[in-house]
Each structure stands twice: as C-alpha cells, then as structure tokens.
C-alpha cells in the first residue's frame, strides 16, 4: 500500500506545473506506468479523490497508460513479453536480456484550463 505517498507526489507535481502555466483548473492527468512498476490504479484514484479536494485539480481524470514489459534477448535478438511463470527467452531459453520497456513510472502531461 504505497499508493498514498505516490498519489501525494502526483498531486504535488501536478499543482506545481499547473501554477507555472497559470491554470485555473486541471482536468486531466496522463500517467505512464510500466507493468513492472507496482501500483494499483483504483487505489490511486481513491486517494486522488480525497487528496485533490480543495485544490484546482479536484475531480481531474487520471489516465493510466500501462506499458507492457518488453525484453530484448541479448543471445538471439528476440523481443518478447514474459509470461507470469517464465521470464527466460521463449525462443532460445536465454537469460541475458535488456529491459526495453516496463519500468516506467512517470507523469507524462496534464490538461489544464487557463
């Protein structure tokens, strides 16, 4: 349950950027979350509704863009998404990989009214 501090951070960053752009309201927040970043969307939304109350970001829609994990096998150059039970390369059983996608944990943009 680390969604509370995560949501606090999202709110802090949002309000800082909203202020820089003289926003009167924040309507949408676009988050980019890799599947290897553990966070529960509904829980963030729940905390958001409470924390954002009384700010110009109250009621803003949180959009979660989920990024599937993408691994690149350094032995056979296969690109693949691992399954729940196997992480090794499905083509050559290799374990030497480069993580291309899946670690993301960012706020990409916000939509504001000025």
């Amino acid at each position, binding site marked *: *349950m*680390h969604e509370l501090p*995560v949501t606090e*951070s999202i709110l802090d960053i949002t309000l800082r950027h909203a202020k820089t752009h003289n926003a009167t309201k924040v309507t949408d927040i676009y988050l980019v979350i890799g599947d290897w970043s553990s966070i529960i969307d509904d829980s963030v939304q729940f905390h958001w509704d409470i924390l954002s109350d009384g700010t110009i970001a109250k009621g803003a829609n949180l959009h979660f863009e989920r990024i599937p994990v993408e691994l690149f096998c350094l032995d056979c150059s296969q690109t693949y998404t691992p399954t729940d039970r196997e*992480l090794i390369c499905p083509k050559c059983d290799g*374990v030497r990989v480069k993580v291309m996608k899946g670690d993301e*944990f960012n706020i990409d943009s*916000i939509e504001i009214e000025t």
Partner: protein
Amino acid sequence: MSKKVPVVEKILGANESLAEENRAKLDEHGVFGINLMASPGAGKTSVIEQTLPKLAERYRIAVIDGDIATSIDADRAAEAGADIAVQVNTGGNCHLDAIMLKKGMEEIDFSKIDLLLVENVGNLVCPANFMLGTHKSVLVASIPEGDDKPYKYPGMYRGVEALVINKIDLLPYIPFKMDYFRKGVEVLNADLVTFPLSCITQEGVDEWINWIIEEVEKNKK
C-alpha cells in the same frame, strides 16, 4: 481555454532528491550505507545479528530499523553489538522513504560511524519504489518463501545490487527449484551478486561479510 502541457517527470522524483541528500550526508562522513529489504520473516534481523559481531572489530556500525510498530528489531541489533540502533516507526506505512530515513539519521553522529545498516519494513512491494540514499540495496530472500518470488515481485528483484538467499539449511526439506529461481533472478537483474547462506549453520555467511568489507573499503577510496 483548455490545453495540454507536458510534464515528463518521475512520480517519485521528490523522494529521489531527498535520497540524494541522505547520500551526500553519508559521503560527507565517509559512511557506507546498505538498505536491507525482504518479506516479513525472511531473516533480515537474523542476517544483521550475524553481521554485527563479525564486523564489530573492524567498523563502528549504526543500524536504523524501520517497522510499523515496536522497537524489537532495534533492540536485537543493539544486543548484537551495533554502536547505535535507531528505531523508526513508520506509523502504518509499509516502507521506509527518504524522509523517514533522514529523521532516523538525525539521531546518529556519523563522525563516529563507518557503516550504516538500514533494515527496511518487511515487504516485497513498496520499499523497492522508494530510494533511501544508501550505497547498496540488498534483498534477503529465503528458501521457505518459494522459488517463484522473482516472478511475482520483479520490481524488488530489479532494484537491488545484492541478493542474500537465506535459510539454505532448509533446502532438503522444501521443494525449491533453485534453477527456476536463479533463471528468474538472472533475467531481472544480471549484475546481481548472490549470497546463499544459513544463519543457523553459518554456511555462506563469510562470503556475505567479505562482500560488505570489500564494498566499504572500495567506498573509502
């Protein structure tokens, strides 16, 4: 007027900035910091109890213990020979973050310390997300937890530099496929150094202690 503005920031960037401040404070005094993470019961405190007496002659050691409640672990660290043991109760939080560590660090005179061991809250999910500012993060896994943990908690296995595999004395009694476990670990974290050990039989403990000594000495240079 409505418009979309780019942000492109890490969500936990503020914590990471604070973690850098913690690191700077440690570096100012030449103190090496290790963050120990694990699920509850994996043996973080036991590993610390094994570690303290073996390093006590060489280093002055501080332990910061994060727990939701009680000072049991800090008491155990003090009894095992920590020069100072500080308990940080997280008030329900399931992890330590950089601010909590900073508060704990304020109780320590780092001019009198060489090594800081941080025992994070027992949890395989949340602590991985929150950098503390220590030099190395270590995960203590244990045989009874099962061989599928890397698959279930990839974030934790990706975010550490060393892996202690504790309770290897139980291998004969538990169906634990070491090969399956290790393959998962290797995909997630190819550079990970691993220390299979038992706090009961002492097997493997020396390798773990030697690694700490190497890392502390490397950091001094």
